[in-house]
């Protein structure tokens, strides 16, 4: 052969994998910003969904608003709008993660880019992790916009510590996204999983008390609620946002969140490994 054989320019090592992970995050963010409708939705959605419950609550409180006092007494909340907004925002967080992270691999598969990514020597879980980074950033923007909009429009004031709110949200990330990872792997296997999204978000809506205290639920439903991390997230966020709760007071919510988080991250990772292995055997990632 006349020409010398080409030598690969690729390097090995953890640093190379980290750079690849960063590239996935950067790509995801750039694509996100190139769909202006997504950015506009960031401003509209925080208001629209909670408004349904806020207006319903006002109607149910009666013409003189007397029912509101009963609601405040049952919930222990000082601000019914803030109480509803926290619950609905957590519900929207889980819902968006299921649609976004949960369908991330499927969307890549349908675009045709999943295979081209998987042809590279990058650790394959990076594609899910990398998708999650910008998603977390956009969700924190979502929370900030929610606080800003409800503060300006309805006078909702966060009396608690912003750091405690942040800490509670951070403690919930492993559970919320671990479930998203497991879901993403299932979606690429079964191809169509809308029914699962409806089931999970329906469970969060009914069992986790997004607009009411779970003490109102029958005993068996309360038992189920205790096995859902969103229950602790909603309770912890309300405590952090509207009282002076510190880490000690929040611990009954933070500890279960971290335990559930560990569980769901492990489930998410192993579901991904199972799916990846299955895809190599069945050719599932090349099928649309």
């Amino acid at each position: 052969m006349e020409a010398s054989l080409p030598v690969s320019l690729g390097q090995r090592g953890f640093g190379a994998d980290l750079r690849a992970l960063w590239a996935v995050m950067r790509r995801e963010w750039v694509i996100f910003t190139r769909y202006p409708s997504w950015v506009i939705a960031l401003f509209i959605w925080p208001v629209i969904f909670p408004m349904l419950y806020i207006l319903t609550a006002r109607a149910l409180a009666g013409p003189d608003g007397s029912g509101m006092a009963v609601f405040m007494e049952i919930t222990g909340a000082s601000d019914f709008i803030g109480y509803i907004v926290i619950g609905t925002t957590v519900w929207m967080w889980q819902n968006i993660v299921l649609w976004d992270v949960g369908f991330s691999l499927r969307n890549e598969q349908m675009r045709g880019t999943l295979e081209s990514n998987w042809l590279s020597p990058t650790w394959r879980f990076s594609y899910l992790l990398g998708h999650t980074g910008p998603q977390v950033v956009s969700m924190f923007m979502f929370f900030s916009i929610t606080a800003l909009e409800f503060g300006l429009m309805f006078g909702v004031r966060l009396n608690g510590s912003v750091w405690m709110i942040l800490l509670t949200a951070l403690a919930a990330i492993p559970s919320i996204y671990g479930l998203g990872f497991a879901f993403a792997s299932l979606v690429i296997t079964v191809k169509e999983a809308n029914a699962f999204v409806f089931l999970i978000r329906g469970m969060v809506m009914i069992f986790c008390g997004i607009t009411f205290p779970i003490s109102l639920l029958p005993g068996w439903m309360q038992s189920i609620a205790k096995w859902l991390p969103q229950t602790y997230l909603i309770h912890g966020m309300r405590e952090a946002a509207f009282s002076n709760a510190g880490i000690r007071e929040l611990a009954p919510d933070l500890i279960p969140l971290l335990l559930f988080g560990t569980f769901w991250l492990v489930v998410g990772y192993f579901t991904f490994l199972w799916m990846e292995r299955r895809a190599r055997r069945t050719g599932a990632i090349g099928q649309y």
Partner: protein
Amino acid sequence: MADFAIDARQLVKKFPARPGTGDKKAEDSPAPKRRLFARKEPKTMFTAVNGVDLQIERGEIFGLLGPNGAGKSTTIRMLCTLLEPTSGTAQVNGFDIVKQANDVRRSLGTVLAGERSIYWKLTGRENLEYFAALYHIPADVAKKRVDELIERMELKDRSNELVEKYSTGMRQRIAIAKALLARPPILLLDEPTLGLDPQAARRVRELIAELKQEGHTILLTTHYMEEADQLSDRIGIIDTGKVIALDTPEGLKRRIDQQEVIRLELTGWHDELAEKLKSIAGIENLTTRQQGEADLWEVNMHAQNSRTALPRIVESISGNGTRLVNMNIVKPSLEDVFIHLTGKALRD
């Protein structure tokens, strides 16, 4: 043992079959009685690749030809580690495709699914920078390499535009540039000119020839016989999951040089005429192709002796609204070899 760029031995890939598509043997077996609580019966399997052997030398262009569903893409997908073989082994650049999958991926540049393999919401440059990171190319090296490839692909003026604004040919060039980023020793090109206009396809073929000169080993699958003939050092013909012939293009053509190819152009083609022509002694492998939208058909058939067959052919054509427009006796092409071996045209 010889140091092959790609060395596949008895590769087999079976998939769970969709209803009515499984292997014949499994389908013919009587259905077992279903019993309550009985273990689920194993699924019927479909064999996509059935014992493929390929030894590809370093620095050669190897063309893999086969009709749709013959097993080309499944073979390529196994070699690039997207699929695990059911049985058999393969080494790419000396690495086992199952046990050393990551090393295999480092050794390969692959064009699969062409223009769909890149991000349309990124620019051409952003795509290449992204994939450079995935192939673990250091940032400073990547920048130079991306510039170099953009220049080489003649995309310098458009590199900062979104890929969605590119033509199919430009997208394909970005897909090829992506495969070349890490300067891998082996390239797997699955239908690299599919859907391209003639000029763009010619440019890609020139590029493939240049890459060979640079020392890359290339495994090429294509639907275009002329392309395989022009580019390949050796060609493997695959059908129903098996390599049924493997030789140089000239060697393959020599296999049927005792035969002649009669090519007719006619209008008013009908199935009855096909039966008549097939019944003529010494005529085999009849294939037809409609020329564009008009009622003009190209009919090719292989004959042991065209002198004896021609009068009968002309006799069969006359009448029934069929009009002979042109008739030639031509030298067998690679396509004729393919038809001779598989009994069908490549586009079937």
